[in-house]
């Protein structure tokens, strides 16, 4: 008897569960149909990836893990953009766009949503804000580390250096003035030049590098970065001038050190910013919705180059500690 009663009880609970599930689904359907343009519930986030590249996945993974740790109830859904596949008509009120392409698509397809863009460069943010009319709220954690951080790293590794060189490419012209202003408080002299693609790179770089004690490689378009890297590294190496790069790859190629944002750095900062923006969702819109340089950073160093330049490098952990102190003191 007990067994039969148990089976009945089980059946009852299953029926009850099914009813509850149906009711919830109905409620969600209702919400979708009638509250569509008001967005989904606050605890649902859509992550839009520019494509299937590993670094987009890495940002999404870290963002999701970090967000879940802070807001366990939040549901994160990921969509990977691919050629020829149309995006859903409605995606929700809160969209995390990872990469420039995802950001552009999100702005075009969901103009009224709140969009947090991760990983696109500052120059792209400025371009978009200049050329696109944005109805919803729009914030970003950009990939590029601010120029002054590279200068600080140069100062840490070569404390007596006072003349820093840099060459700006066509895409970073717009950020040049702001970059120089931010560095002015560091008490260093900046020797800079602009390099349009039609100019001779060696003729432009030579006098800048010859007059510098540290050279900062400023990221631009990939083709610019690739083409100029060789000349920067050759000319600085022969003058025994250390180069501060912007990627692990730059360090490997011959820069003394680099400061850059890893996908983990961006994902982590992105999640923290998202929580902060959500917490102040009812505040005066637009105040906190802006572009942020990444709070976190990664440093890479090239021991071989340091040895050749006779620069004593502190151990990695100490380097982070010393650099963080400098950053805070700034």
């Amino acid at each position: 008897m007990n067994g039969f009663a148990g089976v009945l009880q089980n059946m009852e609970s299953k029926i009850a569960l099914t009813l509850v599930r149906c009711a919830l689904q109905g409620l969600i359907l209702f919400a979708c149909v009638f509250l569509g343009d008001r967005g989904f519930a606050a605890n649902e986030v859509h992550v839009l990836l520019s494509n299937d590249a590993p670094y987009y996945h890495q940002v999404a993974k870290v963002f999701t893990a970090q967000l879940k740790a802070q807001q366990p109830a939040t549901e994160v859904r990921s969509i990977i953009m691919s050629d020829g596949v149309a995006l859903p008509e409605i995606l929700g009120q809160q969209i995390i766009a990872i990469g420039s392409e995802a950001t552009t698509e999100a702005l075009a397809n969901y103009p009224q949503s709140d969009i947090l863009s991760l990983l696109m460069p500052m120059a792209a943010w400025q371009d978009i804000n200049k050329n696109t009319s944005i109805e919803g709220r729009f914030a970003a954690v950009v990939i590029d580390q601010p120029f002054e951080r590279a200068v600080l790293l140069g100062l840490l590794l070569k404390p007596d250096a006072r003349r820093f060189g840099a060459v700006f490419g066509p895409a970073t012209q717009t950020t040049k003035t702001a970059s120089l202003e931010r560095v002015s408080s560091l008490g260093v002299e900046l020797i800079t030049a602009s390099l349009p693609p039609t100019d001779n790179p060696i003729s432009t770089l030579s006098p800048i590098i010859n007059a510098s004690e540290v050279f900062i490689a400023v990221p631009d378009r990939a083709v610019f970065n690739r083409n100029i890297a060789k000349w920067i590294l050759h000319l600085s190496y022969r003058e025994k001038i250390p180069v501060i790069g912007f990627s692990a790859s730059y360090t490997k190629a011959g820069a003394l050190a680099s400061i850059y944002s890893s996908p983990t750095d961006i994902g982590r900062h992105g999640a923290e910013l998202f929580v902060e923006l959500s917490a102040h969702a009812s505040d005066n819109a637009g105040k906190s919705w802006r572009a942020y340089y990444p709070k976190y950073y990664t440093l890479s160093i090239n021991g071989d180059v340091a040895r050749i330049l006779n620069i004593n490098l502190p151990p990695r952990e100490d380097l982070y500690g010393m650099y963080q102190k400098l950053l805070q003191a700034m």
Partner: protein
Amino acid sequence: MTDDLKRFYRAGWVIICLCVSSGVFANPGHISEFDLLSEIPTVNIASRMDQPVNLAPASVTIINRELIDASGAQNWGDLFRLVPGFQSYAVNDNRPGIAYHGFGDEFPNRMEVMIDGRSVYEPVFSTVLWGTLGIQLEDVDHIEIVRGSSAATHGSNAFLGAVNIVTREPTQDKGTTVKVTGGSRETLNSWVRINDSLGPLNYRLSLGSRHNDGFPSIPEGELDDGRELYQIAFRGTITPSLHDVLDLNFGYANDRVGLGDADHPDEFIDADYYSSYQSVEWHHSLLAGGEFSVHGYHNKLRASNSADRGLLSDILGVDDPALVALFLGVPDQPVVGGLGSLTSERFDLEFEHQFSMADQLRTVWGLGGRSEYAQNRFLQGRDDKIWEESFRWFMHNEWRPSAEWMLNVGLMAEKTFVGTLLSPRLSLSRLFSPHHTVRMSISRGTRAPSITEANLDQKLELSGIVFNAFVRSDERLEEEEVTSFELGWAGYFPQWHLGADLNVFREQARHAMDDYQEDLAVPTPIGDDQIKVRSNTGEWESVGAELQVTYRPVTKGLIRAHYAYIDLDSDFVRQFAPEIQFDNFDQSRPRHSGGLLLNYQWTSQWAAGLTVYHQGEVNWRDGNFIDEYTRLDSHITFKFVLGRHVGKLQLVAQNMTDDYSEFNEENIFGSRYFASFSLDLP
């Protein structure tokens, strides 16, 4: 100009125009994260694409400037002992034989060697003449080496391997540097490098000379294998815009060196080699990504050597010259030995285009044409220039479907005088982490005979009558083939600063070019009644493993070790008639070889290094049986500053242990000592 050549040039122009226009009109769009995340190029030879070494589709060794300095190497032969699987030996003291998986041939012929992408494989000798390269070790920035068949990337001559010697670019150094080296065997080497600019042209001009007396004398006679070498090399770079680089190279070398082997010291003859080259390469990077390049070059080699062997009557030991006419039917006359006069020239033009169809897919393809001739009566039995034209098309794709997997597919198609040759390669890599990769690859390489190999007709001719025949080419001579399987692991342990590369391989060669003996239809009055015939009568299989390890326990220290184990199973036809006889050359490659290099920079001024090299016993095909040996080299370096000048003094001791033989028993390599002094004048 043949129709094929005309069609080739026409097609080339159309493609270049299309590529330039596609780049000009491409819309670069906004800057994106891709721009910051994209790789800064690294060197690579394996697939013509910039790839990290651990992602290359073949086993690669890089010898960089630091390693060259740390090794204390005095010549090319010393340097290639640092590479696992290489055989490096002195045919005579100034003529190295350098081969990957070679057999101790006097003229190793199955490895392509390039300088800045320009092939220096000589069609007339079917090998590389290391003395005529026109550059010295000091001009080298790094050397990229593909260990294993690279025919899929570099064509026919890269049958068992490829080497690209990358010289220092004009922008890498400044001012003037002078270097003088003196030491054992009357060695006196000098070298000057001038780096400067002239308007938009940055250039490097280097001049060098080398002199030594070669191996010591032996009881049978003086080994006249000394050297007198003079060379000049120019490299210029013009960068008219950020997207364009024009690279100019030209040079000249005059090398006077002994030709012959120590088994026959009396037959040594001085040979004069004159080589020159001109090379122009244009790189254009496209706004939409990718780049193309056009590379054209011209190589020329002239050589002459001859020795008066005396009158025919003296050689035959006949007192009365009239008897010569009576028995041989020709008047008594002086007999001249040696190569005589020799010329070869090569014109080569290649177009290459790299692009990316998707983030995960990169492609490089291109086409090239080559026209070359060789002219030498001694080797080819005729006076005229023998011209050959060949055309090539190649494509390589690198597909990375996920972070863990990478697929490389490559193909080289060559239209040669023996037909259209196809050399494909497939390589699959599994990335277990950013630092550990396992690679599996299979490739098939084909090699067309060189001009001389296909036209051998070496004989002794007096007054138009053939008196002895030495070697000829089989009129049915075809391409040889090799199929390679390789399983490799490339790992790096950042916590220990230790990198390692291990590969196991199996190489099967079929229809390999080899010589068999054939009875002459009409016996010659002097010499053997047999002739060697170069034909596709050989085959071999190599199975083995190679390891290279680089360890930096501290930033100022370097430990590098390498080891190769190779088991060789071979056979070739010794003769077809009267009954077929086979032979093998299983012992012609050392089963074990390896080395260890230690280098430490004690202070910013003092550095010291030790290199140990071991080679197992071997019976070189064109040389002798050589017992196993271990050689110990060391160096100590002192850097100093004199005002604005930086100087370097280096003392090198080679073979600090027992004497050993190189290639021939008589090539005794004793202890050698060198001192070099260099000064930078900014």
